[in-house]
């Protein structure tokens, strides 16, 4: 287990971006469904709440939080240990 081999994992893509992508997509789909399919019998299932709409909005907020966090503290800025290879994060 050499020291330089482990440096590759330090430049692993940013998981926060992946979480943001997932919940942005889910959030958009559910929010649209919340507006389109909010028939009385659908909302009656959840006691009158428009569950798709509210879940969708919640997911969009979660996605936004992760985007802001990833922007505010990018991976490289999280101080790789000294002597480590200083490659920038490789996510796209």
């Amino acid at each position, binding site marked *: *287990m*050499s020291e330089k*081999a*482990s*440096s*590759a*994992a*330090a*430049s*692993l*893509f940013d*998981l926060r971006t*992946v*979480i943001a*992508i*997932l*919940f942005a*997509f*889910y959030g958009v*789909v*559910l929010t649209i*469904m*919340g507006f389109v*399919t909010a028939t009385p019998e*659908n*909302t009656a*299932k*959840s*006691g*009158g*709440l428009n*569950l*798709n709409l*509210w*879940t*969708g909005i*919640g*997911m969009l907020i*979660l996605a936004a939080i992760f985007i802001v966090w990833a922007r505010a503290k990018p991976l490289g800025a*999280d101080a790789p*240990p000294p002597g480590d290879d200083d490659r920038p994060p*490789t*996510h796209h």
Partner: protein
Amino acid sequence: MLVAATDLRLNTTWIDYVLVAFYFVLVLGIGVLARRSVSSSLDFLLSGRSLPAWVTGLAFISANLGAIELIGMTANGAQYGLPTVHYYWIGAIPAMVFLGIVMMPFYYGSKARSVPEFLQKRFNHTTQRVNAVTFALSSVLIAGVNLFALGLVMEALLGWSLAVAIPVAALVVLSYTFLGGLSAAIYNEVLQFFVILALLIPLTVGGLARVGGWTGLQEKIIAAGNEAELHAWPGTPLTGIDNPFWSVVGIVFGLGFVLSFGYWTTNFAEVQRALSAKDMSAARRTPIIGAYPKALIPLVIVVPGMIAAVLVPALTAAKAGQPSDVTYNNALSLLMNEVLPNGVLGVALAGLLAAFMAGMAANVSSLNTVFTYDIWQDWLHPGKDDRYYLQVGRAVTVIGCLLAIGTAAIAGSYSNLMDYIQSLFSFFNAPLFAIFILGLFWKRMTGTAGWTGLISGTIAAVIIDVLVRTGVLDLSSQAGSFVGASAAFIVGVIVAVIVSMVTQPKPDSELVGLTWSLTSKEDRSHGPDGAATSVLTNPVALGAGVILLTIILYIVV
């Protein structure tokens, strides 16, 4: 006078499947992306010890938040009500904090790559090998349980046959763990954590809205004559012990000490998540960060179970002792169908499938590490270069998944999966915890005592299990596994003490950093690289915080 057959199939539409498919694309994408970061066996098997604490902390909890947990605990919520919270609070939080604050400095500080390797450093090679082999065996068996349970759900919810569902599920887990190793497994566990919450939170909110909020739920449960289910203590419905005092004793000592400390502190599938953290401070914070969601999650697991029991007619009937074609194990999916509209339902289905894969991926990725390092590298084929062991790690992933398909068949032959799991646990974890604690606090304990304690503890648990199964001991399976775990613990300690008296202990110089009394206070707190500057990065402050949170939660409910 059977009621009409309850339809267990989810009312899914194409949009639900689009949401599920998108999730799977990301899961496999993580495997492909993580592959680029794998250039050594340490990258593959321990994520190059590079992950931040929030990632390992959430993976720590997600590896435990498998489908058996999800389905089993909503079932318990439906059957026993609020006392189920003990599994999350007293049955997990103290042990998780103990792992982070007391034990992690020894695990992480010893630079061991696995629990068996730590045992080699503290005891000897025989102890390492005994533990590695039993761990590999139990991992493959438990992966089979996860796989079988996943197949059951896909069969019930989607109409897939077991013969199709089990290999398909195994293939998905195989592809991402094969490509990206532990990093892919851990990253997916973090993603799974959020998707599982996206299942549980809308389900709880929608369910509560249906029954008229928390007060509406209370009224309905009291009306059904089950008021004891609304109080966590003394928890007699859960323990089956009628005397309230002994019921509390059973919860505090049985669940809170032997079972919980044994599971959380020695189970490598969990500990491995902390060992992959980037420094000592992050490793110590891993189980403690995981403890916060663990303390809060019963609010969205136990409560939906309670809602299902009053809202779903077939379950209400079952609970009132009338004939019914559903069991408590169906509570989660029945409530999903009852409450969730299409859209959220697709997200929930993705969350459920995610939970199954989380459990199995944790089994497979920890099996990888133990087999490659402890069995192959240290024992059977030492001295090869690192690329060779990386190849072995990948090969073990494939073989592990194939074996899991086989052990899924064994799991299928047991009528109650939870009993099976509990038995496995009393065989393997309880004796391990015994020698671990003894070895940590008693430097006189010898290497020979390590493995003899392990084996005798396991034998004690197996004997109890056989006695309970054959009816010689008249105990319920739940009580049987608790007695088995206690017996394993006690026998393990007694044998280890006796053997230590007649064998030669290791010299003190070899035990520095491995036993409490020979490790300096500084090394027990942070080590040289521990950067703990604020309250938020201080493991002790974080640990105190979550204990306080748990006490407040107990007072509130």
